[in-house]
């Protein structure tokens, strides 16, 4: 068994290039659930927690667009504790506060939530609504992947073999934007979502604009609710737009019955949640 602990991004990329069988790990909160037998069968892991390039939260300006970049190995506790994230992206702080309990938030990382690629990942709809960009490192150096193109199928991502997530870029939203996050689970804490939804948008000149809506646990991947966005774009905020948004959202997803919920309930809950979120646009 090999357990590598690289101390720089270059070192990690070199290891990954030389050995496609290495499994990248960070907070291990999803991985360890497989149980001792499966874990004992693992023979090559590479720990990303010691790589300084994967940590920290920084403001960046690129092509006149300013935003925050969050290192992939940043924990949800660190995200909750960041004044910068709280000021710019309160929906992400809300989502971070609903990932498991305190113990999970101390270990689970943003990059891990993306790479694990569960359709129920709590932070994922928020990143879609915030139009995030994933910055990945591999043998060809760094490349940017629009987050909307990151999830390519059930538990599949656009990362190439040996590529790892370095950080996630979130462009600041226009002045006056509203952000909302809502998770519906069996209980308030420590639950995997039945439906998880995020919205970013604003009202300008009496019209809904810059609207992005996304949902998790309603398809094989976290999805943008593009038909809903289209249906209410340019409309006046209020009950009519909210009703239309809820109905359109329920019609544009194909949830399934599984151990956590039913397709019927997921559609019902999504309609209600989207309706209330659009009502928050004023």
């Amino acid at each position, binding site marked *: 068994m090999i357990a590598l602990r690289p101390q720089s991004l270059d070192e990690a990329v070199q290891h990954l290039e030389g050995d496609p069988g290495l499994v990248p790990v960070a907070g*291990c909160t999803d991985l*360890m659930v497989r149980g001792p037998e499966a874990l004992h069968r693992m023979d090559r892991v590479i720990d990303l927690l010691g790589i300084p390039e994967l940590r920290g939260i920084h403001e960046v300006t690129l092509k006149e667009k300013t935003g925050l970049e969050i290192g992939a190995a940043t924990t949800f506790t660190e995200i909750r504790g960041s004044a910068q994230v709280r000021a710019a992206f309160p929906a992400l702080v809300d989502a971070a506060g609903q990932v498991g*309990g305190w113990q999970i938030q*101390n270990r689970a990382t943003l990059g891990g939530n993306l790479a694990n690629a569960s359709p129920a990942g709590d932070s994922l709809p928020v990143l879609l609504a915030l139009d995030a960009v994933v910055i990945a490192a591999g043998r060809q150096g760094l490349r940017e992947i629009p987050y909307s193109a990151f999830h390519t199928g059930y538990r599949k991502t656009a990362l190439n073999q040996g590529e790892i997530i370095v950080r996630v870029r979130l462009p600041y939203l226009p002045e006056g934007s509203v952000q909302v996050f809502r998770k519906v689970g069996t209980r308030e804490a*420590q639950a995997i979502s039945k439906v998880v939804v995020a919205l970013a948008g604003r009202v300008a000149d009496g019209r809904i604009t810059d609207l992005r809506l996304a949902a998790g646990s309603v398809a094989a991947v976290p999805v943008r609710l593009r038909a809903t966005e289209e249906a209410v774009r340019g409309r006046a905020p209020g009950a009519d737009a909210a009703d239309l948004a809820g109905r359109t959202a329920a019609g544009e997803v194909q949830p399934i019955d599984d151990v956590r919920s039913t397709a019927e309930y997921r559609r019902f809950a999504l309609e209600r949640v989207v309706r209330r979120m659009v009502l928050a646009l004023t």
Partner: protein
Amino acid sequence: MSHSFLLNGQPVEATGHPMERLLDVLREQHGRTGTKEGCGEGECGACTVLMDGEPVLSCLIPLFQCEGRRIDTVEGLTAQESGPLRETLERFIATGGVQCGACTPGIVVTLAALLERNENPSREEAREALSGNLCRCTGYEGILRALLPGEAGR
């Protein structure tokens, strides 16, 4: 493979597969059976320990990531004979905070971490801190009464 870390203040060595769960290492190699396995899936909080002072779930920590870290278990944290944790635990007994007892060690570890940061938590702060610890006797009210003596007489 051998890994060294600080366990309740003492340097220790642990051997085993790098992906061995810290929970099993504590119980089987170091006799620290105060740390309980509940669900083994990161849902219940029974196996909570502190890693560098932060509450974490020992069923989800692979041994190799403990190298050089400080691990505190319920045995170490309750050794002190005075202080906010001790006072809370005395009340814990009086309020019936212990029912079947399965969740109690994990809850005590989380309380130790909470009180270390905040000696007078509000009800909301206490509820949030404990949200990762399930008590299936649903004895939360007794636990909160022990933690929130300012609310006495409610």
